[in-house]
């Protein structure tokens, strides 16, 4: 019924392949994310959830198996095409925010647009709109060091939205925030999903997260253990 934006088929990730310390982090994982889904991937440390996110986000290639973003098989792509997929189709939100400390909030969003070839003027305008969307319309010219963790994460979300990606990937986006601020961020993501139709996948071991999402993929020892529906309390 729904359009698939992301599909992984039997992906395997092995580190130190062929060496005595070989370790298989992902064992034939398959999943599909549809347009408009808000999904969380949870699991204990070392379960392979971060590796799965890195592969979905085209930051890393799987040892075997296929990854399809908007129907494109990324296995076939070269490094620079992969970079283009990351820029155009995927928006990242990290636990550490990963903003550039020496430039303003607006410039942090602009840089994502400029990298993908937008003109300076267009990038400035769109960055302003996006920061307004995440509630930072008055903090455009503040540098990350002048902002709280929650505000910095909002800037990171605005940056992730910059090129109108098909999917937004969050790597523990609330991991560095207190519970209350974390909830605000999750509410913002929920709003972006509900009102703006963004597809969002969040990796977390924060049990709160499962309450905001449509469904949760539980991962353990490199395999999908089960998929549960969200409690949809805030929906």
């Amino acid at each position, binding site marked *: 019924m729904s359009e698939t934006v992301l599909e992984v088929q039997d992906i395997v990730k092995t580190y130190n392949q062929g060496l005595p310390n070989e370790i298989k982090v992902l064992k034939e994982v398959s999943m599909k994310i549809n347009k408009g889904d808000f999904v969380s991937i949870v699991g204990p440390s070392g379960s392979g959830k971060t590796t799965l996110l890195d592969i979905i986000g085209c*930051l890393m290639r799987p040892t075997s198996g296929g990854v399809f973003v908007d129907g494109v098989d990324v296995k076939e792509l070269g490094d*620079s095409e992969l970079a283009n997929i990351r820029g155009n189709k995927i928006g*990242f939100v990290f636990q550490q925010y*990963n903003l550039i400390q*020496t430039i303003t909030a607006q410039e942090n969003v602009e840089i994502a647009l400029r*990298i993908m070839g937008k003109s300076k003027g267009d990038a400035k305008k769109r960055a302003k709109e996006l920061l307004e969307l995440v509630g930072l319309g008055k903090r455009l010219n503040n540098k990350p060091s002048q902002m709280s963790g929650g505000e910095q994460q909002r800037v990171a979300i605005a940056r992730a939205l*910059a090129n109108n990606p098909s999917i937004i990937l969050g790597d523990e986006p609330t991991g560095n925030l207190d519970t209350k601020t974390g909830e605000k961020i999750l509410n913002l993501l929920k709003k972006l999903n509900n009102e703006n139709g963004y597809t969002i996948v969040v990796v977390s071991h924060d049990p709160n997260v499962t309450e905001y999402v449509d469904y949760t993929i539980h991962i353990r020892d490199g395999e999908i253990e089960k998929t549960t529906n969200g409690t949809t309390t805030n929906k």
Partner: protein
Amino acid sequence: MIDFAFKNITRQRTRTILTTLGIIIGIAAIVALGSISEGINQYITASLELSAGKIIIQQRGSGGFQGGFAGSDITDDDLEELGSIDGVKEIVPMNLYFSMGRGMSFGPGMVIAGIDPERSEFLVGENIEMHEGREMEGGETGVMMLGFVFAEQRDLGVGDYFELKDMEFEIIGILEKIENPNVDDSASVNIVDIQELMGVDTYQMAYVVPFDIRDAEAIAEEIENSYEKLSATTPVELARQVGEIITQIRLFTLGIGGIAAVVGGLGVLNTMIMAVLERRREIGVMKAIGATKRRILMQILTESAMISLIGGALGLAIGALVVFGIVLASGGQLPAQVTPGLAAGSMIFALMLGIVGGVYPSIKAANLDPVEALRYE
């Protein structure tokens, strides 16, 4: 990309300034030393032009051209013998009187040349024009003809008197300025006056002029072989000797400047390696949000090129100031100047240093694994 590059290099302000300073010193050294050696080159070449087609005679073992002909005593008898050689058109003897002068200046001080007034073109060239007054006439003594700069620096005019030891000379003419320091800074008197001034009846050197310039080498050889006392140097030979000296001066100065600049380039390399290390996470983020390897590569290269170009431009300016200062201190005698070629060459060299210094760090940055870079603490 350029605006981001500028922001990036100004992050570690002190480090960038110090790195730029390395390039500034190197390029300033190249510009200053290069201009000065070019100036020396022009100065010597200008001296040579005047003696083209002539054989220079001096006493064997004397100081030679650079040594002011100290100890060279050529007699009238010698001149007569030289005049009898086949193919010799004429012989023009010359004496030079050296004085340290009064001014506080570098350079050769004051040189008064004594020559037969009818042969003054041997000193000042063929196509000379008078700025003021007239040329010396044959047999005229007690008079002096000045180069333009010589007169200007000492505020002398036609009709003034110039004292040398206990002799007094009337200034009868000032030459037009011709941008050749050998002429512009000269003063000439009748050779008889110089002999009296120096208390000698001999000559320090003589020009032997062949009927045919092509015979100059053969005549010089004959003089070398037949006269134990005299040595003969042709302009060709002199040019070769001088050329060797100039080449050595050039290699030496460019070598020093080059070493300084390469050290500056190493500074750029070091700084960019540090910058890439510090910004690992940021480079990871850039990759995650779509930057290609090429883009990262160009970003880092732009930054290092920017440091070296800023350093190069400032180095060029400072080098030019140093040259200007030296020219001023030499009282305009050293015609050193920053030629467009030297300016362009030093900027290209600076850019090259920046690019070479940026290649390794930029490749390192471009090949960073985004996953590792993003989680780097």
